[in-house]
């Protein structure tokens, strides 16, 4: 300990590493490269991780979409090939029977999966847009970004089947003048006047949908198109800790029992499980993180071994000097400490420079990918990982320093003095 804080100790160390600059630099580069790779890999994998998170941030990560198809097996007296329709009350049944479901929202659409959209007219302007009949809960599953002053569909809209709509950005541009406030304005959809209550910013959350979509209350949709109790698909969000794959199975099982479908009929109901896909991507990102950790640590290890190697040579070169020190009264412990401190100091110095360079490169990559589609956001290396890496380096530096240190004290001082 005394040695650690003595100015002279550090002078000894600087003296010896400064004397052989080339050797020192080459040694340092070994470890520097190791920690640099480690930091860049760890940061980049974190960046990918964040990038994926960002891509999914507008939709509940454990959500799924399910829809009805037609049966492929005869069951309970029904023949095969019977067309199925989801009913609005199925949503209540599902919610009651499956406790893992947090939100469930039936949806009806027009012009999304084929077929014409809704003809929309305002003054002399007209176009057709895809139309969605929504419950307010949909906003809790797939985030709806509504521009200022506007709002999303609410419970009163549903109860009273109000003729209100939320329009897309493109719809606003095409139906309204640039300086016009669309909120409170009216547009004619399928020959019925709707009041615009909000404009949504389009966010890609599902494979379908675009920036022209018009959202109206589910109950209003039902009246316009006479859909009765039918629903085209359900959007389901499970609780965060639920196993979304299991939820999908449960949902299908319940639907099969309600609609009298053979329990083994795989084709009766379709589902798109975002949670499962998300989990797969997260698993992939975790794999990358793990791999980068292993590769980084291995590189650091290689660098530290390099330092040990160089120090071993250095000790051989300095045999005479170490002999002098011991003749003058340096105990084996003090000689050992000197060599180990040198090793640790070189390792740490290399480590710190490597971390700084790594951080700089991460920052550069971040700046380059800022406005691109590439899933790469905020590449950071958690501080505990950095400190952990430094600790590992100090420990390894000490351990590897032990070898040359032991070599240094294993030579008798008289033999060391004879060495010229």
């Amino acid at each position, binding site marked *: 300990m005394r040695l650690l804080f003595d100015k002279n100790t550090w002078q000894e160390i600087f003296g010896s590493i*400064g004397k052989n600059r080339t050797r020192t630099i080459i040694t340092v580069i070994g470890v520097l490269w190791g920690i640099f790779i480690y930091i860049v890999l760890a940061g980049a994998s974190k960046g990918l991780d964040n990038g994926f998170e960002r891509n999914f941030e507008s939709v509940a990560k454990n959500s799924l979409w399910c829809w009805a198809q037609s049966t492929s097996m005869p069951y309970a007296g029904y023949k095969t090939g019977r067309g199925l329709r989801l009913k609005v009350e199925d949503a209540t049944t599902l919610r009651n029977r499956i406790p893992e479901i947090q939100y469930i929202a039936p949806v009806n659409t027009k012009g999304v999966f084929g077929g014409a959209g809704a003809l929309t007219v305002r003054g002399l302007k007209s176009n057709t847009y895809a139309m969605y009949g929504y419950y307010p809960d949909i906003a809790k599953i797939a985030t709806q970004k509504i521009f200022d002053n506007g709002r999303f569909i609410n419970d009163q809209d549903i109860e009273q089947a109000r003729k209100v709509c939320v329009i897309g950005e493109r719809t606003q541009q095409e139906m309204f003048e640039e300086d016009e406030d669309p909120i409170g304005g009216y547009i004619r959809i399928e020959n019925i006047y709707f009041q615009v209550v909000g404009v949504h910013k389009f966010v890609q959350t599902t494979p379908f949908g675009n920036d022209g979509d018009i959202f109206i209350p589910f109950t209003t949709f039902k009246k316009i198109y006479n859909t009765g109790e039918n629903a085209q698909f359900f959007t389901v969000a499970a609780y965060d800790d639920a196993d979304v794959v299991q939820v999908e199975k449960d949902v299908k099982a319940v639907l099969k029992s309600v609609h009298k479908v053979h329990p083994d009929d795989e084709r009766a109901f379709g589902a798109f499980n975002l949670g499962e896909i998300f989990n797969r991507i997260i698993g992939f990102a975790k794999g990358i993180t793990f791999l980068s950790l292993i590769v980084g640590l291995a590189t650091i290890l290689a660098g530290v071994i390099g330092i040990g190697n160089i120090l071993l040579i250095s000790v051989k070169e300095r045999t005479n000097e170490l002999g002098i020190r011991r003749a*003058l*009264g340096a105990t084996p412990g003090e000689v050992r400490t000197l060599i180990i401190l040198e090793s640790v100091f070189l390792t740490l110095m290399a480590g710190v420079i490597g971390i700084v360079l790594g951080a700089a490169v991460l920052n550069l990559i971040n700046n380059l990918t800022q406005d691109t589609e590439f899933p790469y956001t905020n590449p950071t290396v958690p501080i505990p990982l950095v400190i952990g890496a430094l600790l590992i380096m100090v420990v390894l530096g000490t351990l590897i320093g032990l070898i040359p240190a032991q070599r240094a004290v294993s030579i008798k001082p008289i033999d060391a003095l004879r060495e010229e």
Partner: protein
Amino acid sequence: MIEIKNLHKSYQMGSNALHVLKGIDFSVKEGELVAIMGSSGSGKSTLLNILGMLDVADEGEYLLDGMPIKNLNETKAANYRNKFLGFIFQSFNLINYKTALENVALPLYYQRINRKKRQEKALKYLEQVGLKEWSHHLPSELSGGQKQRVAIARAMVTEPKVLLADELTGALDSTTSYEVMGLIQKINDKGNTILVVTHEDDIAHMCKRIVHLRDGVIVKDEKVKQVRAAEYVQ
């Protein structure tokens, strides 16, 4: 100051042992200036190494200032060397990347003396050997005689009980040798005990007593009239 009795030392050279010291009995009183003479292979360096605790005897007793030196481990030997002994070597053995001052201060560092005191003391001893102006020079910038004087200052700086000099003039020309011996005599005049190993007759005669070694035994131990080195240096 030094008492040795029946000292034996042999080296293992492959399969056969080389018996270097074959029972040395020898004592040095405080303030003596003793030359140990002998041809190469006579065991004089081995004797000095054992006295300097750089090597251990196989057999025999060694008392330094009344204290028995035995069962030394490396750490203990290092501490004793640091406290009780000063070394002067033929090849100076200065550390080449340290200045004269730092070289002289180094033994004090191992005595855990603080930096300021170390430098003060080192400077004082450099002044005594006449190299105060050279304190910030590296060994490579000094002449042989200057290097040896730095080494002498380094040996003196801990105020050891005994100074051990191994062929201290071996690498110096005769004029410089006499200068260095003059310095040794001056130090001895102040009451320091000094042992000089040499094979040069004139150097030996600048001491007060000469011990002749041959084939590992003392063949002659005589008091001589000291020749002052100053007589040569004119």
